[in-house]
C-alpha cells in the first residue's frame, strides 16, 4: 500500500467535561486535519455513546477511511468497543489506534490546560504516524479438547475431578500412589466437626464409580506437551506408556509433612509428631495424662519463614479429642500466635480454652527446651521460665512442598515460589490460575490448606478450567510475536523471559519458535532480543520509532 492510499479519520472525544473541560477540543480537531494522511476529523461529546459509534461507522464508509484513531480515554476499558465498531464497518480491527488524552493528559494537567492541549497534539500526531504503519491482523481460532486432566488424587484433586465430571466433562485423574485419598488417609478425625476422616474419604467411591472419570493410579507423568485447549500428557502406568489429551490441566499434587527427625529430641515414642498422634488416636491407644504440644516446629524460622496455616487447628483438634476422652488429662499447647481465623475456627479455639486446655505463648528467641522430665519454656506474661511435666510431647510440623513439584513445574512450564509451592498468576485476583493459560492449581500444592480450603480451591480450579473446555473454539490475540529466523541465533534469552512459556527452541534450525496460541503479545521477548529478530505485531519497531521521531520533531 503506498502512502497515498492511507486515509486516516481522527475522532476527538470530549468525554463530557473530563477532557472537554480542560483541553481545547476544537483546536485539536482542526490540528488533526493538518496531519499527513488525515482525511477526516471530528469531535464527539462522547465517542463511546451509540451516537459517537455510529458516526465512526458512517464516516468509515463516507470517507473511505482505512485507519481510525479515537483520542479519548484508556484502551484498557474502551479499545475492544472501538475495535468492534471498526469491524462492523468492514475495517480490520487492528487498523484502529487509540490515543489516551484523558488519563494521561486532561486528568493530570487539569491546572495547565494550554500545556495539556499542546501535549494532546503531540499524542495525536504520534498516533497518526503510527496509524499510517498499522497492518491488518487476523485473530486465530483453535479447537478445544472438551476434557480436563487432574494431577493428584487427594481431596483437592478428587473433588475437582468430581465437579467437572458432574458438569458432564470427561476427566482424567492421574495419581502416583496405588490408591486415592492423599494425606486424608492418615487422618483420624477432621475439624471443625470432629467427624471421622473416613466420611470425607468416601469421596473416593464417587470418583471411582463416576463414568465420566478415567482413573490412572500408580501412574508417573513422563512428559507434558501442548498448550491451552490442546494438552497432551504422557504417563507411565504398569510399564505401559499412555497418552492422555485434554483442554485444561489442574495441578492438585498436595504437600507432605516435614519430618520431625532432629527437632526437639524427637524419638518417636515420648516425643512424636502431630501426624503420629493422629495414628495413635485412630487406634485409640492414648494412655498418658500429661501431653504438651509445641507449635511452629521447623517453620516461621530463618529456613522456613512461612506459617503452615493448618497446624494450629490440627493441634486444637487433637487436644480437644484427648480432653474429651480423658477430662483429667493435662493438655498444653505452646504456641506463637494461634491461627484461627473466622467464625467457626475461633469458636473452636474458645471451646478448647473452655475445656481447660492450657495455652502458653513462647518467643522464637526463647524456644521451649525439653528436659528429661519436663519442658522448660520462658513465659513472657510471668516473665520467668516455667517447667511443665510431660509424658508425651507432640511436635506440630509444617506442610512442605513435595520433592517432585520442581520436576512437574518444569514439565508444565509454570513457576514455583521460594518454598517450592506452585506460584499462581496473581495472588489477589487469580488465586488458582497460572499465568500460562489452561493450567490451574488447588489445594496444598499451592499453599498448606485444610480440607474445607482444599475443596473450595478445587471447586474454583474446576470452574476456571470449565471456562476453557466449555468452548468449542478459542480465539487468540492477533497482535503476537513473530521470529525472523534469518536473524535469530538461538540464544534463548526470549525463552527464559517469556511469562507465558510461549517460545520454544527448534533444535533442527537452532532458532526459536513462537506459539501464537499461547503468545499474548506482551513484547518482553522483542525487547530482550539482542539481534532484533522478534517483531511484535501491532507494536513493531517501525511503528514505535515513527512515534518517537515525530514526537521529537522529525519526519
Amino acid at each position, binding site marked *: 500500500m503506498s502512502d497515498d492510499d492511507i486515509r486516516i479519520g481522527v475522532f476527538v472525544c470530549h*468525554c*463530557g*467535561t*473530563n477532557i472537554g473541560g480542560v483541553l481545547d477540543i476544537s483546536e485539536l480537531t482542526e490540528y488533526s486535519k493538518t496531519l499527513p494522511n488525515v482525511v477526516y476529523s471530528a469531535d464527539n*461529546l*462522547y465517542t*463511546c*455513546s451509540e451516537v459517537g459509534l455510529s458516526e465512526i461507522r458512517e464516516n468509515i464508509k463516507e470517507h473511505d477511511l482505512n485507519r481510525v484513531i479515537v483520542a479519548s480515554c484508556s484502551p*484498557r*476499558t474502551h479499545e*475492544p468497543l472501538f475495535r468492534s465498531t471498526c469491524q462492523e464497518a468492514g475495517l480490520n480491527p487492528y487498523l484502529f489506534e487509540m490515543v489516551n488524552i484523558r488519563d494521561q493528559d486532561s486528568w493530570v494537567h487539569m491546572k495547565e490546560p494550554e500545556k495539556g492541549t499542546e501535549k494532546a497534539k503531540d499524542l495525536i500526531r504520534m498516533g497518526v504516524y503510527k496509524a499510517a504503519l498499522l497492518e491488518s491482523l487476523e485473530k486465530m481460532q483453535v479447537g478445544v479438547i472438551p476434557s480436563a486432566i487432574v494431577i493428584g488424587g487427594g481431596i483437592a484433586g478428587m473433588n475437582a475431578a468430581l*465437579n467437572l465430571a*458432574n*458438569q*458432564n466433562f470427561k476427566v482424567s485423574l492421574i495419581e502416583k500412589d496405588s490408591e486415592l485419598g492423599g494425606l486424608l488417609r492418615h487422618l483420624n478425625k*477432621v475439624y*471443625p*466437626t470432629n467427624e471421622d476422616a473416613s466420611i*470425607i474419604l468416601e469421596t473416593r467411591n464417587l470418583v471411582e464409580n463416576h463414568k465420566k472419570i478415567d482413573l490412572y493410579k500408580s501412574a508417573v507423568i513422563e512428559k507434558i506437551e501442548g498448550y491451552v485447549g490442546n494438552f497432551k500428557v504422557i504417563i507411565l502406568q504398569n510399564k505401559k506408556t499412555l497418552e492422555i489429551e485434554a483442554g485444561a490441566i489442574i495441578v492438585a499434587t498436595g504437600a507432605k509433612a516435614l519430618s520431625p527427625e532432629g527437632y526437639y529430641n524427637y524419638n518417636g515414642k515420648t516425643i512424636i509428631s502431630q501426624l503420629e498422634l493422629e495414628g495413635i488416636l485412630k487406634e485409640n491407644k492414648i494412655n498418658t495424662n500429661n501431653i504438651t504440644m509445641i507449635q511452629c516446629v521447623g517453620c*516461621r524460622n530463618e529456613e522456613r519463614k*512461612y*506459617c503452615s*496455616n493448618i497446624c494450629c487447628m490440627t493441634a486444637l483438634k487433637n487436644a480437644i479429642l484427648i480432653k474429651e476422652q480423658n477430662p483429667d488429662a493435662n493438655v498444653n499447647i505452646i504456641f506463637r*500466635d494461634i*491461627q*484461627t*481465623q*473466622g*467464625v*467457626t*475456627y*475461633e*469458636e473452636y479455639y474458645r471451646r478448647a480454652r473452655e475445656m481447660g486446655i492450657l495455652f502458653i505463648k513462647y518467643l522464637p528467641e526463647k524456644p521451649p527446651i525439653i528436659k528429661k522430665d519436663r519442658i522448660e519454656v520462658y513465659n*513472657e*506474661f510471668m*516473665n520467668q521460665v516455667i517447667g511443665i511435666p510431660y509424658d508425651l510431647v507432640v511436635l506440630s510440623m509444617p506442610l512442605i512442598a513435595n520433592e517432585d513439584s520442581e520436576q512437574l513445574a518444569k514439565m508444565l512450564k509454570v513457576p514455583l*515460589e521460594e518454598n517450592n*509451592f506452585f506460584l499462581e498468576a*496473581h*495472588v*489477589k*485476583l*487469580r*488465586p*488458582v490460575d497460572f499465568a500460562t493459560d489452561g493450567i490451574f492449581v488447588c489445594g496444598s500444592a*499451592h*499453599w498448606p490448606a485444610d*480440607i*474445607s480450603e482444599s*475443596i*473450595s*480451591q478445587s*471447586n*474454583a*480450579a474446576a*470452574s*476456571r478450567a*470449565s*471456562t476453557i473446555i*466449555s468452548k468449542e473454539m478459542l480465539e487468540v490475540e492477533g497482535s503476537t510475536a513473530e521470529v525472523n529466523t534469518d536473524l535469530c541465533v538461538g540464544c534463548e534469552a526470549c525463552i527464559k523471559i517469556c511469562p507465558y512459556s510461549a517460545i520454544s527452541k527448534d533444535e533442527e534450525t537452532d532458532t526459536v519458535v513462537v506459539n501464537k496460541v499461547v503468545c499474548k503479545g506482551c513484547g518482553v521477548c522483542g525487547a530482550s532480543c539482542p539481534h532484533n529478530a522478534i517483531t511484535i505485531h501491532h507494536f513493531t519497531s517501525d511503528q514505535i520509532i515513527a512515534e518517537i521521531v515525530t514526537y521529537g520533531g522529525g519526519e
Partner: protein
Amino acid sequence: MGENLKRVMVIGGGIAGIQASLDLAERGIVVELIEKNACIGGRMAQLDKTFPTNDCSICILAPKLAECFRHPNITLHTLSEIKNLSGQPGNFNVKIFKKARYVKEDECINCGVCIEKCPMRVDDEFDMKLRKRRAIYIDYVQGVPSIMTIDRENCLFFTKDACRICEKVCEREAIDFDQKDEEFELNVGSIIVATGYDIFEPTSLGSLGYGRYLNVVTALEFERLICASGPLGGHLKRPSDKNEPKKLAFINCVGSRDIKNNPYCSSCCCMYTTKEAMIAYEHDNEIETSIFYIDLRAAGKGFREYIQRGENDYAITYIKGKVAKILEDDQKNPLIFYEDINTSQVKQLKYDLVVLATPMVPKKDAGELAKILGIKIDDYNFFKANSYHPQKSSKEGIFLCGACREPMDIPTSVIDASGAAAKAAEIVMRG
C-alpha cells in the same frame, strides 16, 4: 421436575459476585446479576490498596467491572433486591424489586454536568461520610454502570417539588422523574448469594472514644482518607487540625474476638492494618506506627513475610496487648492506655491518629434475605455454610461465597466465588 434452566442468579455485585458471574458467563451460562446499589464494585472499590501485593484496589478491579458490564451472557440489574423465591433447584422463580433510578440507563453518558448543578449536599456513603455528594450522583468515578442516579430521599423535586435543575441541564434528556419502581420475575436454575458484609460500628465501645474524638477513625475511613480518589486527594491529614500525622496507632480486634460484641475473628484485620501502616509510611517516611494485637494472624501465602517486611522496612512496631481505653489531650492527640504484657502495668502512649480495626459483620438485612431464600444463618447472622463444602448453603441449589458466609479476605472471596460458580454449574449442567 421441570426443565433444567441454564441460567444462574448471582445476588451481590462485589468482588465475589463479579468473579462468580464472570466464571459462569465464560462457561457459557447466562447470569442475572442482582445488585442493591446503583453501581457494582462493593467494598473492594472503597479500598485504597490490597495486601500482600499492595496493588491499587480499584485499578485491578476496574477491568473486571467493565468485563462484567460488557459480557453478553451477563445481565446487570442494579438498584434491585430479592423479594420472593419459589420453585426448586434447576428451576427457581425469583421476584425482584427494582428501585427507580430516575435516569434513563441508555441515555445517560456520565458527563457530570448534572452533578455540578445539583444544589443538594448529602453525606457520601461511599466515602464513609467524610465528604458530601449531590442528590444526583454516581457512587464513585469508576463506577459501573457509569451512569447517574437520583437519590429520592434527598432530591429537592421529591422532597419539596422544586428544582429540576438536572433535568434542564442534561443535554441528552436522560432525567426521567416519572420512572417508577418495578417488580419483575426471573427464572433461574441455581442461585449464588454474594451479598458481602457491613462494618461494625464502634461508637458503642465508649472507652475507645470513636465518635467523640476526631482523631480516632475506623480502618475503612482510613482507606478513604489515604486514597488518591478520597476526600483528601491522597494526602493523609488528621481530621482535627489537618496536620500530617507522624505517629499512628492501629488497634486490632476492636469489637471482634470479644464476647460482648462479636466473638469471632474478622480474618483479615492483622493483614490490612499492616498494609495501611505500610501505605502511610510510603506517603511519608517519617511516620512511625504501632499495631496493638492479640494474636498476629497471617497464615496466607506470603502473609508472614509481609508482616516481617512491615516490621523491618516500614517502621511498624507490633505491641501485644489489649487496649483498655483511649483519652485525648488538649491538642486532641489520642492517648492509648494498654496493659504491658511484660510488666502487667497499665501504660500510656500518645499518638497523632488512631485507627480502629473494626470487624466485618453480617449485612443488616441478612436475616431477612435468609428467610426469603429459605437458607439457614449462624448465631451471628452469617449465612450458614457446610463445614467441608463451604459454598453449599443449607438448601440445595443455593450457594454462598465471600464474606456473607464468614469474614474473609479478597483472594479467599475470589476462590469462594469461582467455587460457587462451579457448584452452580453442576446444578444447571448436570446430565
